[in-house]
């Protein structure tokens, strides 16, 4: 069933990832080459950025782990008696690493973890996966193989006598492991002695052996138990450390291992950053920044986030989706050639071909822009390429500035909304971002209610928020924010002034309260309280309230100024990817629904009038498989083939009309029979039915109900 096809060696082309795949047209009117290169460089940039982020996020965790590993076998290093006495209890130091359900991301974490450990702790690290270790024997084999290989890597340069032992030949047991360990450590010992400890090696003389179980849950309990019991016997000869990768909860250790085994472990728990936080950081660094020219549209972002939240919690998959967006954007949008850093983009504008200029003129956002201009300008824009290019440069710059400002103001708004009760605009900045991209945020009800809530904030909160905003604006690259910062600072000083005043007022109020306490009789108390209430109702707003209103109004004005949705901006098509359907079709497909539609409503695909139908029925001229499928829906668990065949032939005969059965009816019958057989076996292939032995000439339905 396998066939290899090889092209003749002459024709074999050198492997190349050319731009030819990128656009079919060979002429370079649409800058395919350039687009391809831009896309590639952008993706590489983003990829390295994400890796960087991942590294930073894991740093804390890895530091903790490293210090744990150092601690765990420090006694072994010192060879103190304390060590031996502790080892009588035979506990293996174990790190339980809770990583979360996003299994797909774990690989990356483990890879960088083993790298870190290799650099810092010990060269002896083995990564084990459940699928490689169905039995204890395989586990030991894998373990020894990995350890001894790494050993060879380390000192293959120095030792020629170290014959690369094939793992099949040595008996895989813990004893051989210990022997190996002793020989290795002795060697390094003598080496270090020879070198008279001049070179301060990164590792100690007897580094621990670290065994990482990548997916602890999927290991067979038997294997794990055996391994733990056996190695705990030898812990005083072999400084072993285990690391369990756990996707669910730390409780799993105890449900997997009986008490007698788990008591051999000295477990310390480590919690990795949750993938949701990881995603927020990724969105923060990739999308909410002016650094990358490529942007995601609202729907696209929504879909990616939904896939993340509802399907896998996998940051890897999110990035994969992001990659798909980039590729699609650069492929489908010829103007994406301008989707690069502003400086380059300006240069590229100058060398745009006439075709590309026409493309720009066709952009809906640009058309809107043209329509808003005076008539002479309109003509110039539509006829003179050079003028067009000038304008485009200006517009691109506008767009860039818009992005810079957008991010800062968005963050500022988020500072306010994220602390409001019930989070009318969402807790996460990504939700706010989506809301702002979707339409004018200040026209939404949620914004209205959040403003109202903001008008009720207390002073200390307000002051801290303002301070945060000031910081955000200070650090932003936008040039327009000097005034804003000034204004905010002014607010802050006013608040401080208020505070001072309030201090004085407080004295007054205290005294008045004392006054109140003097009058003990009920009548007067009531009276004063009523007065107080009256005065409060009619009272003018306090200074603080006035100021608060002012602040909120100011924020509101910022929002209205800067958080205009992107698709109101001219030339947004260059930077934004908006084709959400592509993502949904390719990443989140529903194969069963496609089958269902094709079988129930073939007109969706075959545009023939004869197939057109209304409601849930199909015409009797539908393809055989559809008819057979429709008929089988009427059955219960078992289907009688004879009945089925007859029903089918009734339908088909009727469809073919009366003239068919006049002539060679027998012949026709055979053909119908054959068609039926084909349709039924197709249904079997699709998994709707299977042969049944329960009754002769029956098939069993595998789906339930009319679906």
């Amino acid at each position, binding site marked *: 069933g396998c066939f290899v096809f090889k092209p003749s060696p002459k024709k074999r082309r050198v492997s190349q990832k050319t731009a030819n795949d990128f656009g079919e047209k060979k002429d370079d009117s649409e800058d395919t080459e350039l687009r391809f290169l831009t896309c590639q460089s952008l993706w590489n940039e983003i990829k390295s950025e994400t890796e960087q982020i991942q590294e930073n996020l894991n740093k804390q965790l890895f530091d903790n782990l490293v210090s744990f590993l150092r601690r765990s076998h420090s006694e072994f290093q010192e060879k103190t008696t304390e060590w031996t006495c502790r080892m009588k209890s035979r506990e293996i130091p174990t790190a339980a690493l809770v990583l979360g359900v996003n299994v797909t991301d774990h690989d990356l974490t483990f890879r960088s973890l083993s790298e870190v450990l290799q650099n810092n702790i010990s060269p002896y690290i083995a990564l084990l996966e459940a699928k490689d270790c169905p039995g204890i024997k395989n586990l030991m084999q894998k373990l020894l193989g990995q350890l001894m290989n790494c050993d060879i890597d380390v000192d293959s340069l120095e030792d020629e006598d170290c014959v690369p032992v094939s793992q099949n030949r040595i008996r895989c047991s813990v004893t051989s492991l210990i022997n190996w360990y002793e020989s290795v450590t002795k060697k390094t010992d003598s080496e270090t002695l020879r070198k008279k400890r001049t070179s301060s090696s990164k590792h100690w003389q007897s580094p621990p052996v670290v065994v990482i179980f990548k997916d602890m849950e999927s290991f067979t309990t038997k294997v794990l138990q055996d391994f733990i019991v056996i190695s705990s016997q030898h812990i005083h000869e072999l400084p072993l450390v285990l690391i369990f990768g756990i996707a669910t909860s730390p409780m799993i250790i105890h449900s997997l291992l009986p008490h007698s085994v788990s008591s051999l472990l000295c477990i310390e728990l480590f919690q990795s950053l949750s993938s949701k936080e990881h995603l927020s950081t990724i969105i923060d660094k990739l999308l909410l920044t002016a650094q990358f020219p490529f942007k995601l549209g609202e729907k696209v972002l929504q879909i990616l986030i939904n896939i993340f939240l509802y399907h896998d919690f996998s940051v890897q998959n999110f990035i994969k989706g992001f990659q798909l967006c980039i590729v699609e954007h650069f492929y489908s949008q010829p103007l994406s050639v301008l989707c690069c850093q502003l400086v380059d983009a300006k240069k590229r504008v100058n060398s745009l071909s006439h075709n590309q200029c026409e493309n720009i003129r066709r952009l809906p956002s640009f058309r809107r822009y043209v329509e808003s201009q005076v008539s002479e300008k309109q003509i110039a824009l539509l006829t003179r390429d050079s003028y067009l290019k000038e304008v485009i440069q200006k517009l691109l710059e506008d767009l860039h500035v818009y992005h810079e400002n957008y991010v800062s103001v968005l963050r500022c708004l988020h500072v306010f909304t994220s602390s409001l009760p019930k989070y009318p605009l969402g807790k996460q900045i990504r939700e706010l971002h989506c809301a702002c991209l979707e339409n004018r945020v200040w026209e939404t009800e949620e914004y209205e209610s959040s403003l109202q809530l903001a008008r009720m904030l207390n002073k200390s909160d307000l002051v801290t928020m303002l301070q945060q905003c000031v910081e955000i604006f200070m650090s932003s690259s936008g040039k327009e924010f000097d005034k804003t910062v000034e204004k905010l600072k002014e607010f802050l000083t006013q608040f401080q002034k208020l505070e001072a005043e309030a201090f004085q007022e407080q004295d007054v109020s205290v005294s008045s309260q004392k006054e109140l306490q003097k009058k003990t009789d009920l009548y007067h108390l009531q009276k004063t309280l009523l007065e107080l209430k009256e005065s409060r109702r009619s009272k003018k707003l306090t200074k603080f309230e006035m100021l608060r209103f002012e602040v909120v109004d100011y924020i509101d004005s910022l929002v209205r100024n800067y958080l205009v949705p992107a698709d109101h901006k001219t030339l947004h098509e260059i930077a934004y990817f908006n084709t959400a359907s592509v993502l949904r079709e390719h990443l989140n497909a529903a194969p069963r629904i496609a089958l269902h539609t094709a079988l129930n409503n073939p007109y969706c695909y075959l545009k023939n009038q004869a197939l*057109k139908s209304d409601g849930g029925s199909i015409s009797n001229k539908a393809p055989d498989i559809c008819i057979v499928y429709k008929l089988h829906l009427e059955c219960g668990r078992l289907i009688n083939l*004879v009945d089925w065949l007859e029903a089918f032939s009734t339908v088909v005969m009727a469809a073919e009309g009366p003239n068919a059965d006049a002539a060679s009816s027998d012949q026709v019958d055979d053909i119908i029979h054959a068609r039926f057989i084909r349709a039924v076996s197709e249904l079997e292939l699709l998994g709707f039915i299977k042969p049944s032995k329960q009754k002769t000439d029956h098939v069993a339905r595998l789906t339930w109900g009319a679906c």
Partner: protein
Amino acid sequence: MSQPEGKGSGALQVKFVPDEEVLKHIADDAGIKVQKDKTQLTVSLKTFVKKLENISDDEAQEILEEKNYVAALGICAQDSMGNGSGVGGGEVYSFQTPKRSSKMAELASELAQTPGQSVAPNHSECPEKTAKTPQSSSNKKKEFVSTTPYRLRKRLAAPDPYLESESEYSASCSEEEDEDDQKEVSTVLSGRKTPAKTTAASTPPPRNTLAKKIKESKMSNLVEEYFEAHSSSKVLTSDRTLQKLQKRRLTQQTLHDLLKKAPLAYAAEIKELNQQHESLFSKWMRQLHWGFNILLYGLGSKRDLLEKFRTSVLQDSVHLVVNGYFPSITVRSILNSITEEVLEHIGTFRSPLDQLEFIIKRFKEDSSLELYVLIHNLDSQMLRGERSQQILAQLSSLPSIYLIASIDHINAPLMWDQAKLSLYNWLWYETTTFSPYVEETSYENSLLVQQSGSLALSSLTHVLRSLTLNARGIFRLLAQYQLGNKDNPSYPGLSFQDFYQQCREAFLVNSDLTLRAQLTEFRDHKLIRTKRGADGVEYLLIPVDDSTLTDFLEKEDEDV
């Protein structure tokens, strides 16, 4: 059970409710309806006799809800060209009551009656009218008796005052209905005792209220009915068999020839579909190069499409075609063809995992190596195992191996967990082609196709020829006995003791030990099968169908 509230806006709630509560719920509903007008009464009644009409209404409702759900997910219903994404999952996976087997015939006749135009399933049509279907009406009646009432009786048996009153009420209101309906009802339900059901198929009440009402009570019954239908081992279908049809079984060859004669329906439209898909070839190549793998799904054989892709795009590069539908394909053979033919490595491997490791190493070392892998039917019987998929997934995750595969089975995506999915890194493409699965089904042992008769025959004669004359005689005896019993459907086989007697009488064996030795030889060649009956007696059977056996005996006679 769930109760959709409001106008289908809320998502469905699922919770388990004890039976009593369900009954009470139904009763409550019914009670309220009794106090209301009679159209609603008939509605509630109607739910008990599941009618297709109602169900289609429900579907409409479900679609509505589905849309809401989809919108809520942020995946709006707006969609590109006619792919099926517009349909919600509820429609596909909905639980619905099993229908009577005769429904098939009814539907068939309906479809037949109105040629050319679509048929709204209208069930006020009476079965008499449909009696012109080839199925005999007596047969049909028998089925009616045997099927539906079982459930209904059971439900009615529940102590339920409301239902009582309801039935009385409906009995009176049935008088107002026209003659036709009366007649239909009485024929359909002739076997029943309960008069309550006689109004079941009354005039259709206003639709929009109907849908909701029905849904409510339908949903409450669903779970119960599912288990009812699946718990009873009784199968309620007709007993007819293909043999009585007096139609010879077609062989693979004749089937093939016949199908060639039959013109392919909608060839033009199918061609158009294919052209649409072919325009994606360059896109696929690009995405393959970006590290994605392509997965094709949708109704219809995708073999030709992939072949076309191969011939038009992959001519200049090394590629591997795997016919997953081939019944003896294994992962091992795929790996072997990579190591032996692509990497030109001579030597064997201890396990597929070793082999995989070797391949991965080679591809990582040599970045100029590139391989396109096309797998037809990645979900085939042989490749769908967990280990095979794991290996294939790991292969496909190599940056210089480009995988493009197709799946057909409805449950194919269940093969993969998150880890495998991320290794595969799929981009899904819907390529509905509507082309017949010619190659894919040709290996399948279809029920209706004569079981590879020629092969069995030749192997039989071949094996027998190498045996002694006595042994041949023994086998002959067994075959003759089996043919003599071919009309007995519950023929268990020939018991060992009887067989021994017969053999002795024919002077073929002299002790039961020799017979046993002979039988062991037969069994080793898979000529016979032994089976222990309920009484502990050993029965012998030749696992070959009767026609082959007849052919065999005839041939033997010729030889002798």
